[in-house]
């Protein structure tokens, strides 16, 4: 297959599968508009669990391996304190990036 063919087949298949994931529950949402309590318990845990799973690896294994001696750990801890205190995206971005840039220079 040509490289162009490989490219577009990959794009279409990756996109189709991703859309299936996105539509999975939204597609049948009219049947679960009022979910039972057991399901509500589970759904309520999705945001904290998924977002923490996105955040923590970026702080403690940025190079693809676990390392607590690199600057992103410290920048992450300080940014976490700022995020809890201010709940502000731009302030947290500014402080977190600034701390990391300074530590990278040391």
């Amino acid at each position: 297959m040509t490289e162009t063919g490989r490219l577009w087949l990959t794009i279409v298949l990756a996109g189709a599968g991703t859309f299936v994931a996105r539509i999975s529950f939204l597609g049948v949402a009219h049947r679960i508009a009022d979910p039972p309590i057991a399901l509500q318990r589970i759904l309520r845990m999705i945001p904290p669990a998924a977002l923490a799973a996105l955040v923590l690896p970026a702080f403690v294994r940025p190079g693809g391996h676990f390392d607590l001696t690199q600057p992103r750990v410290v920048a992450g801890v300080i940014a976490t304190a700022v995020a809890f205190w201010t709940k502000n995206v731009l302030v947290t971005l500014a402080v977190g990036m600034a701390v990391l840039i300074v530590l990278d220079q040391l």
Partner: protein
Amino acid sequence: MTEAVRPEVQGARDTLPIAIGIIPFGLVAGAAAVEAGYGLSGAVGFSVIVFAGASQLAAIDLLSGGSAIAVAVLTAWLINLRMVMYSAALAPWLGHESTRRRGAAAYVLTDQAFALSITHYDKGAPLEDRLRYYLGVAVPLWLNWQATTILGALVGTKIPDEIPLDFAIPLCFLVLLVPTIKDRPTVVAAAVGGVGAVFVAEAGLADAAIVLGALAGIAAGAFADWRLSPEDP
């Protein structure tokens, strides 16, 4: 008299700082496709049809490195499997909308649209405002992603290596994470989700780390919730 802010405008306002944080990521997504030899059309194809940054970069990397199509596609699917969780979390809030509208909402579903909308709904959003707020968040993010992809494909990233802009993405997720931690069960969910993702990645399953870590966190949080309040709703 003050008029209430329209929900889509509120959504767009809440999105703005996050969209800024995503700009470098979009530039990289565009530039990576061009550097791999796939041109502007490949870059835009990925960003319009797949519309999920981490999976785009992984697929481009694998495909241009000579991997089989199946490997690139399965990796992208695995990385985007987390969207199933977001779809499930949003479903009860948007169940009153038509199938067509829910389909459109699904297409623009992202980490950020999910996180901002869920937090907004938790504060109490009338039925008729919910999809409007969601689209107010998701559509600007979509436009931002397409624009930065094209820019990155045309002019490259032009970002000095000394500036660690990739760190902006987890910092945005961090601010989105904070309001979702409300009580002991959600603390458990976040702690187990984060630590679980690190463990799964260390075990060599980096592409599955987010979804497997999150599933562990959801299970632990739901169990803690049930132990602490077995009868409460």
